[in-house]
């Protein structure tokens, strides 16, 4: 029910209505991006971004840098396992 799935915005379908086409595990879906756009971040700038999709809406952008940092920390933990 509260399922959220990562997907990548591949194009903007309707700038006015804030609709984008998002690829989710190889499947293309129309997703409403109203919750993640504003004057600083107009729809046109969203192509290529990863978002979390929930019930047809993009809930938030996925921050690639933060994701990489989390994985980096876990990698370090795995490399220092013996200590």
């Amino acid at each position: 029910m509260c399922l959220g799935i990562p997907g990548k915005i591949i194009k903007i379908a309707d700038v006015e209505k804030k609709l984008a086409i998002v690829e989710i595990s190889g499947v293309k879906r129309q997703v409403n991006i109203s919750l993640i756009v504003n004057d600083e971040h107009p729809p046109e700038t969203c192509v290529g971004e990863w978002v979390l999709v929930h019930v047809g809406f993009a809930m938030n952008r996925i921050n690639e840098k933060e994701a990489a940092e989390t994985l980096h920390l876990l990698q370090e933990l795995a490399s220092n396992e013996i200590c």
Partner: protein
Amino acid sequence: MKYVDEFRDPQKAEALIWQIEKLCHLLETPIKIMEVCGSHTHAIFKYGIEEILPKAIELIHGPGCPVCVMPKGRLDDAIAISQNPNVIFATFGDAMRVPGSQTTLLQAKTQGADIHTVYSPLDSLKIAKANPDKEVVFFALGFETTAPATALTILEAAAENINNFSVFCNHILVIPALQALLNHPQLQLHAFIGPGHVSTVIGTDPYQLICQQYRKPIVISGFEPLDILQSIWMLLRQLVENRCEVENQYHRLVDKAGNQTAIATMNKVFEVRENFPWRGLGQIPDSGLKIRSEYAQFDAENKFTIPNLLVADHKACQCGNILKGLVKPWECKVFGTACTPETPIGTCMVSSEGACAAYYKYNRLVRTGKNKVTT
């Protein structure tokens, strides 16, 4: 990066388990951790996380499955609305098999009610546009994750002047539910795995209150196996170091303040109800949302006469105690016999996020076997 496989890497998982074991050693006492969110419960079973954790850690499956906490009376109301001859009733698939006091939406559908399952609230608006001579009602449920989507749909209906559309609003709020749980005198918990997707909307700040008032560490967590293991590791570190903080494991999606656009949209359309009934937990103050009077024309509670009765939970059902972590599903007398996913008595058996359904699906033999040995 695809944000899925990277967070399932077995080598990193092993390192985390090793760290968790070390911390459990230091703590020298059994630790009870509640995962609030139903999607966490689902992931924990799907990846067999309970089995790989040290015995000292007990995971308690909390009330964060919106379908599981939907009270019978509200379902009866939903079914009553769907019985109006001119109504098309639109709902998420999860709600179809939830038992009301007499019947389910699925049974109502087979008996002739016009009930559609939809993936998004926007789909129900499309149905309204395509059927101008019908009244289309969307059954809105879910926490703060889903409420902004419903709010935007209502705003769109208002902008396009779609008058044959309304929403039966059952959105609920996570913080009051946690408070109600923590006020329960029997509840014994050491820490919380916080709901990641709710927190993409509300941020991590609202949990500060819980953390300070009840002295329980909280880590907001993602849903992949590494996310959950890392969150448990972070919680244990807090316990070992005697800290009590709100920490964020799900940095890639959650920040302190949340999604301001989503919060503003929610506040524009909804206001907080004085009280809302939860299955198994009773009335919880300030725990539900209702549609503001400015949007009353889109409020199904305003458009239709609904019974609005409080109905007691089934006598045999232990859902309430399960959601509080006082009882395990297999300890319920009817678990796996009278109550199965095909014939659910309580809602914890309906949704794949419910604790009973998760035990039934992934773990039935081990658990019922274990139960026999220990009783």
